[in-house]
């Protein structure tokens, strides 16, 4: 359980920070995209 706890600290602290950095790299594209390239509806 001790090892699990330290792994959880690393995953949550570094993992969430990494996702945030990933988002910052992506945000310009999100804000400028017109959103017309979704999958074609099949239903």
């Amino acid at each position: 359980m001790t090892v699990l706890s330290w792994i959880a600290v690393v995953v949550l602290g570094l993992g969430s920070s990494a996702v945030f950095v990933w988002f910052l790299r992506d945000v310009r594209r999100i804000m400028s995209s017109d959103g017309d390239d979704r999958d074609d509806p099949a239903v």
Partner: protein
Amino acid sequence: MPFRGGVGAGARGDALQPTRDRRFRVWGEDPIRGATARPGAEAEPDPDPKPRFVPGRRPVRIPPVQIGALDTAIVVAYLVGMVAVGVWVSRRIGGFDDFFVAGGRMTTPLLVCTLVSTYYGLDVTFGTSETAYLEGISAFFAYSAPFYVAYVAMAVLVAPRLHRYSARSLPETMELHYGRGARVASALSSFVYSAPILGIGGMGLIGSVFFGLDPWVGAVVGASVALIYTVLGGLLADALTDTIQFTMMCVTVAIAAVYALLEFGTPDVLATKLDPTVFTPYGDLTTSQILVYGSVALTPLVEPAFYQRTFASKDARQIVRALLIGVVLWMAYDWLIVLLGIGGQELVRRGELPADVPSWEILLHVVEHLLPPGLLGIFLAGCLASAMSTIDSYALIGAGNLVYDAWAPVVKRKPGDATLLRATRLMIVPTIGFALLVSTVFDSLRDAWIFMATVLLSTNFVPMMAALFFLERPSPRAGTWSAATGLVGSLGLFLCFLLAGRELDDGDVVWTTPFGGELVREEALLFTVPASALAFAAGRVADRRARAAA
């Protein structure tokens, strides 16, 4: 928004153990019957005429935690920053699609942030820490773990199928298979589920514990900030603020956990000091309790926020990846919150916290003990973030349910895009007002959560899973009958519990049915979901006969 608190085993008798009270009141005392004393407890003089937002059957008076100017400044800066994001994004909203599903342009990192922060509000944060404080690591294994299975099923099985639909919401997906009646029933159930009762209650708790505010004031201030940026910027503002909120809540919990591991010792060390049952995976839960909470864990499969974000994702791969990354983060988050909750037991054992500290507040007292100024303010902002990310997202969904799913399909003249946008923005205000109102009906957050989850699952689970996995052609009667039976059955049962229910000493509410048997409120969905399945089967037969006759 899976609530994880205060169910299961009974109180422990050991004086060093935290006192257990299974019900956490939404507003500190029963708004209808007034404050009630815990069975066996002496009535205490009440020096403070204002009831604190506390769990339990009697308001417990603990002075507000004093926080410094730096921490307060961090919290205020955070609130102002959220409104600024809403103002900025509002200039980019061109129509209803932009507002409600962010124009379908959400990518993996944004989806991870918004899914994790939206689905995990203060209800999970405080509920899990409370359950860990009272019951130990069963908070993780018995309550949280079944949800991970559902998240993975949502990612692998449901989301890819769902993304193929040309829809914007769960009720609209129902209409594609079953017609307008099923959509309206689904919309009403989704609205009930999405009313951000738990987040608003949590805001009241923070305002009460840290700023000495009346719970209503804290809740209204926090909800108003969430309301402003959601009305202005819709899902995109919601998601962008979620990224900040997601990072704050995750990083602050991780930092607090490091402090806890260093201060209290690792779990292996704690296991030698605390009651052995604290580290028993399923505690003293009965099989039926594990079954009920395993059933509630099916909620993610019909979760309106998951559906909305699936439709908002740029493609199916983005949402699948986001959900799978989210599962890992949710697991880490839950485990560390459990650790902090168990830290509360250690503080009680050392005599640094009174044994009758309200269990619902335990996380706040533990972090106040652990974190230095500055970090405490960031943690508080993280808690506010956790609540606000839930309030904004579900208020938006609730308003969309009323306007887009319940009103627009039934009016004769189809409303235009501008009307839909205006009406949805407008309905966010009464949606939050409805949540405030409903929060006064329930004695506790747990009661509210059970009600909301039962209504959502009973109405949508059977028809939606059948639509996704079994149906080859539309079956209007099956879906409509099933959704209507689930909705009316669950609402009717809860009305019976409200009007004729009898409260037991352990906080459970039972209703004696006209047939003589007794029904426990927590187990209502074990009856309403099968009833919905039976109605679905009957509708299928009726549809087949109708087709044969035609």
